[in-house]
């Protein structure tokens, strides 16, 4: 399974320079997080009373914040949140959403309709706002942020899973597997999961990018975390008042990190949309038909 994913990624990289660049950017952030403690003299929490809100210089390439802390160190440190929070939320979302979608897809009937309508109702509230309201209700903590984002993304994965399973069902795939004498657990593990994996994996970069945006928005508004952290949205919030006074670096550099990180995830998502597993097709004959590398057998519109 992992080999298949790796092959998919390698294929993406070869076909799309953008996707390759995006992977390099993400790897760069990861490398910086690992290397920072040994490679950079200023810890993210160290205050330098001598240089408060200092402009970018050789000593502090991205300047310092209102407490005299090195922004470069803090931006790099903040990447930990950009990796951890979306990943944790995704794990929760897939663990919750995939079984739900599987049940709806296999069960069909009233269960399917009930779930669909419930998701539709919840979907009426703009997801960003609902996620923020959930965190506000549970209280400010990163764990709650993960839960809120995970819950809302679970809907996305449940829908994706449901569509894939339905598509397989419509192709007679499931009937054939049952007719061949597969018991339910085997049907799910051996036949359904491998065939839906590509779609689930294809959804990951887009949802990670969304989660990152929500996390930052919460940090920016001030409902994600109580204490001051190096989370990028919170850093931007703390930098805003100085931005109006002309010391823009405290807000803009974490913002640019956010943009580059989120942009990399978006580019990855676009590449998958274009070359990766297709979303459940309306035509049952083509639905989910992919070759071994997870690419669609039927060509999507060029471009």
């Amino acid at each position, binding site marked *: 399974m992992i080999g298949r994913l790796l092959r998919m990624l390698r294929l993406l990289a070869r076909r799309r320079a953008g996707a390759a660049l995006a992977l390099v950017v993400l790897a760069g952030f990861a490398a910086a997080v690992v290397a920072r403690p040994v490679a950079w003299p200023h810890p993210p929490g160290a205050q330098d009373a001598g240089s408060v809100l200092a402009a970018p210089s050789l000593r502090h390439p991205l300047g310092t914040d209102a407490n005299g802390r090195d922004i470069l160190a803090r931006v790099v440190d903040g990447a930990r949140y950009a990796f951890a929070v979306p990943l944790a939320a995704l794990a929760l979302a897939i663990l919750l959403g995939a079984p739900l979608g599987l049940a709806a897809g296999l069960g069909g009937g009233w269960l399917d309709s009930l779930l669909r309508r419930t998701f539709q109702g919840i979907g*009426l509230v703009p997801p960003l706002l609902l996620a923020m309201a959930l965190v506000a*209700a549970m209280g400010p903590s990163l764990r709650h942020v993960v839960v809120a984002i995970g819950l809302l993304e679970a809907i996305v994965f449940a829908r994706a899973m449901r569509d894939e399973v339905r598509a397989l069902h419509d192709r007679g795939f499931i009937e054939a597997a049952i007719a061949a004498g597969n018991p339910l657990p085997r049907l799910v593990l051996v036949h359904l999961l491998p065939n839906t994996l590509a779609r689930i994996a294809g959804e990951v970069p887009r949802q990670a990018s969304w989660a990152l945006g929500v996390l930052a928005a919460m940090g920016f508004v*001030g409902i994600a975390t109580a204490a001051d952290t190096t989370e990028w949205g919170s850093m931007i919030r703390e930098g805003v008042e100085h931005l109006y006074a002309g010391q823009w670096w405290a807000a803009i550099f974490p913002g640019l990190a956010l*943009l580059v990180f989120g942009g990399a995830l978006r580019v990855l998502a676009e590449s998958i949309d274009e070359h990766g597993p297709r979303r459940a097709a309306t035509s049952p004959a083509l639905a989910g038909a992919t070759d071994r590398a997870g690419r669609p057998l039927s060509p999507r519109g060029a471009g």
Partner: protein
Amino acid sequence: MERPVRALLRRLGVGLFLALVVVLTSFLLVKLDAAPSDVLLGGPTPAAEERAQLVEDYGLDRPAFVQFVRYTIRVLRGELGRSWLTGDPVLGEIMARIPATLELMLYSILLGTLIAVPTGVAAAFARNTAEDRTVRGASVLGEAMPPFLLALLLLLVFFRWLDIAPAPSGRISIVLSPPTAVTGSYFIDSIIMQDSIAARSALAQLVLPVVTLALMVGATLTLLVRGAMLAQMDAPHFVYARAQGMSREMLTMIALRGALPTIGAGLATQSAALLGVTALVEHVFAWGGVGQYGLEAMARADFAAVQGFILVSAAFAAIMHLVHALVRRIARIRIRRA
């Protein structure tokens, strides 16, 4: 005759169910909190008789199901409770802020569409060229752009550095008083009142927030328009239109007309969820609209206000979807009648 009635009833049933889900979501928000009664009961230190009244109203001493039923009834009556920060009814506070938000959204959707349609069309005609790639790259970047960062960048450049935009201090200059409310839009009201100074100030305050939101709308919409156009351009009738020797303008009209339902649906979906992005932009520009109100309520755990805000945002989305469904229906009838 029977089938339309059944279809209508079905749709009504679905609508009711969706509304129930929304109300339940809003209800559960408060149940998530460890001490929901404190949250509902008007803040940390409510008066004793006030507390008793609220316990009675909400049925807080009763099982959760009863509480939910009572909550639903109150919502149906339009009673969204009082904000513990101001002590005023939430519904009134939200209603007073709706015009500000609607004005911002309306202009942004218009401007965003004006940007996205020509750009998306041009990219589709230039498929896979450098021009197309540039447009797509910019759109993907726009989609990844946090709205508040874009707002801050625009403020930094146009307010702080170039000093041609006003400070992010709301809908009108702080030295002016708002015009008499007619439509609720400061700009239009100032014009009605023939107050050119107020009108100019209101317009200046609108520019940056509208541009921010319009770029956010435009980024997603451009990709949508491009995709919808390409789907049309691959259709046989488009190839045939080219074989007839049609000019670029005529071809554009033909493809755009076919792409219109897709673009409309995308615009409706986007508008329905736009309140989220709008809230962040309002927050930066101290716009004083519904979105800013909701975010502040969240930051201060003002729960009646948060619940009201969530209900209103869902209602707004529902209205957007309804409008879209209506427009589609009318368009289809027009075609069928012919």
